């Protein structure tokens, strides 16, 4: 009897000991093996992004931008003569355990900057602030930014490239009904709105709806569906009955948009199919090929994907040249077009790199931020002048152009670009609108 207990005891201790030993081994994986001499010690850039989970595609696009930027800068002799090293941490499905792991690994690795896309999940902001290094966030989601803004006194080192979410529902509706852009006689003034139950999408839809109602449109369907929903049969039944001139789908989840559009295609109505953010994602157009032709969308930031900029605006020509370079490199290196995520991540990296070069140090965060405030940065998606209060390069669709797109011939073509408060009314036309094939 005694021996049995002893055996149990030994097994118990053994098990816990094995666990205890294995944990440090695990965490050991992330810490560098040798300490190089100070002058060639790499500058560490942490990437907090989604490698797995539903938004893995965005994460991949994000990481690609930084890989390209790293190689470019290292080929030119590094930043301040030091090589740049990337450290990717996976936000996965945003469970708290994962967030804590991201924070703990990046913090213990001692990163000099954290590059972060967006999560519509303010808790990520809380965790990234605890790393205590400079955070370059490339925006569009005000909840992430708002969480920082509410805590800005305790953590000043947060920079947001774009804080434009609320701005772009209104100009989007304006652009759609702008005869300069959409040359199609609307058969009626009815719109159906399908919204994904995420704050980001709901806010946009609300603004879009308000503007539509102000313009005298009738909203025949305003339907918020659960995140990840893929069955749109009932919604389409209603749409088929009402036959509205516009179907507006406000969702950032590509799967939802693809499913809804697939259902729509089964028996199309006399409507424009209008989407938001997903238009820039290769996920969407790769699912439909030519069948995606005619879908309209918008994305904040100057993002000329498949169409060339032939206008006269010299600023836009600069943006276009930069964006085109990244676009070509991405296509060559990864065999796939970039999404806006890629271009914006690139901008957010170079804003920082330029400021670091100017200051001559990576860890003097105050000086780096001062440099950002003082010198606007001209990137591939716009000119970013950082505001001392909001820490945002562009605020509420302010100084960064807004692009309106249509898929034509399987490619995302820019129809028009607008800027400022009247981004949808006062547009620069780039390409002719095509009446979607199902309306012909």
């Amino acid at each position, binding site marked *: 009897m*005694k021996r049995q*207990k*002893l*055996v*149990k*005891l030994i*097994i*118990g*201790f053994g*098990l*816990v*000991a094995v*666990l*205890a030993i*294995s*944990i*440090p*081994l*695990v*965490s050991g*994986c992330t810490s560098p093996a040798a300490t190089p001499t100070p002058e060639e010690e790499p500058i560490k850039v942490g990437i907090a992004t989604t*490698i*797995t989970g539903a938004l893995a595609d965005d994460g991949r696009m994000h990481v690609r931008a930084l890989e390209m930027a790293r190689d470019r800068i290292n080929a030119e002799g590094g930043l301040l003569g030091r090589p740049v090293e990337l450290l990717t941490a*996976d936000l996965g*499905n*945003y*469970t*708290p*355990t994962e*967030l*804590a*792991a991201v*924070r*703990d*690994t990046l*913090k*213990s690795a001692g990163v000099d900057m954290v590059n972060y896309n967006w999560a*519509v*999940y*303010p*808790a990520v902001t*809380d965790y990234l602030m*605890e790393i205590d290094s400079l955070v370059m966030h490339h925006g569009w989601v005000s*909840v992430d930014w708002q*969480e920082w803004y*509410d*805590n800005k006194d305790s953590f000043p080192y947060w920079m947001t490239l774009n804080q434009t979410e609320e701005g772009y529902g209104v100009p989007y509706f304006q652009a759609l009904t702008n005869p300069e852009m959409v040359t199609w006689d609307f058969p009626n003034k009815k719109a159906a709105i399908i919204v994904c*139950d*995420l*704050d980001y999408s*709901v806010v946009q839809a609300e603004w879009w709806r308000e503007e539509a109602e102000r313009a005298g449109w009738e909203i025949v369907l305003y339907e918020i569906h*659960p*995140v990840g929903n893929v069955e749109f049969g009932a919604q389409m039944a209603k749409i088929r009955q009402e036959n509205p001139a516009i179907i507006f789908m406000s969702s950032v989840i590509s799967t939802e948009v693809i499913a809804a559009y697939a259902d729509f295609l089964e028996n199309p109505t006399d409507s424009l199919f209008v989407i938001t953010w997903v238009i820039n994602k290769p996920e969407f157009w790769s699912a439909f090929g030519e069948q995606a032709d005619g879908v309209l969308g918008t994305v904040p930031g100057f993002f000329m994907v498949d169409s060339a900029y032939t206008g006269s605006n010299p600023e836009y020509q600069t943006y276009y040249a930069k964006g085109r370079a990244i676009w070509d490199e991405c296509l060559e290196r990864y065999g796939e077009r970039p999404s806006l995520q890629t271009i914006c991540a690139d901008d957010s990296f170079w804003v920082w790199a330029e400021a670091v070069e100017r200051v001559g140090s990576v860890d003097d965060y105050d000086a780096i931020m001062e440099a950002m405030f003082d010198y606007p940065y001209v990137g591939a998606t716009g000119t970013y002048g950082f505001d001392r209060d909001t820490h945002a390069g562009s605020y509420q669709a302010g100084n960064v152009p807004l692009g309106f797109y249509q898929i034509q011939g399987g490619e995302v073509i820019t129809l028009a670009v607008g800027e400022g408060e009247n981004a949808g009314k006062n547009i620069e036309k780039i390409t002719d609108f095509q009446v979607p094939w199902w309306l012909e």
Partner: protein
Amino acid sequence: MVVSKILRKNAFMLGALLVLALLPIALRGNAHVLNILSACLIWGVVASAWDLSIGYASVWSFGHIAFFVIGGYTGAMTVMYLGIPPEAAIPLGGVAAAVIGILIALPCLRLHGIYIAMVTFGVHLVLSTFILRWRDYTFGATGLSGFERIQLGQYVFSSSVPFFSYYVIFGVSVLLLFIIYRVINSTIGLAFVGLRDSEPFAKSLGINEYKYKLIVFGISAFIAGLMGALYTSFYGTVSPFMLEVSTFLMVLIMLMLGGLGRFPGAVIGAFVITVLSEALRPLVLWRFVILGAIVITVMIAMPQGLMALPQTIKSFARRVTQRKQIKKDSIKTSSI
């Protein structure tokens, strides 16, 4: 004499507790590892509470992750909107979960097996709708964060203060595990097991099935909810992401890998799965493929779960020796 007997009888558990209590010191407060250990403990308790229901009472509740999340939201929201001190909010999370647990137990009273599973899983499915709809208070899919945490002098209970927080979680976990242990070995626990093993017999002894179903739902939901509130307070955030299938799947695997109805098997399962899933993180996309393969292999090799490992070996050894003995005997008799 009595002390030494208790010591000997629970050598395994006491040894494990001692190691867990001393580990942070040995690790010199390594934040990453301590947070993983804290997660192990939290999931260990949740899985054990769930085991109370599935393993001991054989009530196939699929609502325990929902109870966990309900506890989390209650904890966070009472602090945010009612200004209740965070220490008090944590047990409140448990109470809220227990109330919902008992409410959901009512339609389950007449049901069995998979039918209970479905009704309780219904809570899980419906909960996210309510969280999303009640946007004004729950902030929908964005989740809650930035609420007040427990503070003890200069120490804050948070995953960014791992050393202090680990001991808080350790203390609460040990207390709750002790309660679970006591429940298992009490008359209530015996009634659970009786109902599980032979319902007609248990009924003939005057054990009221309905009463015990309500009790088991109440206790296990309470513990799950309390841990949910603790988890929320520890990580400072709660969101409907927790209701995704992956969490449900992982905790159920922890529980069953350890062995159903074999306290503290669920805790061991939680440690193994949590540590493994952290250890496999560098594999990125292949991580859960490998984890799934490990789970399958382990279960095929050890069908009774990890907790039954010593027993499996023992009974295997006994069977082998028995067979040898029988063979020897029959040779003897046949030679006569």
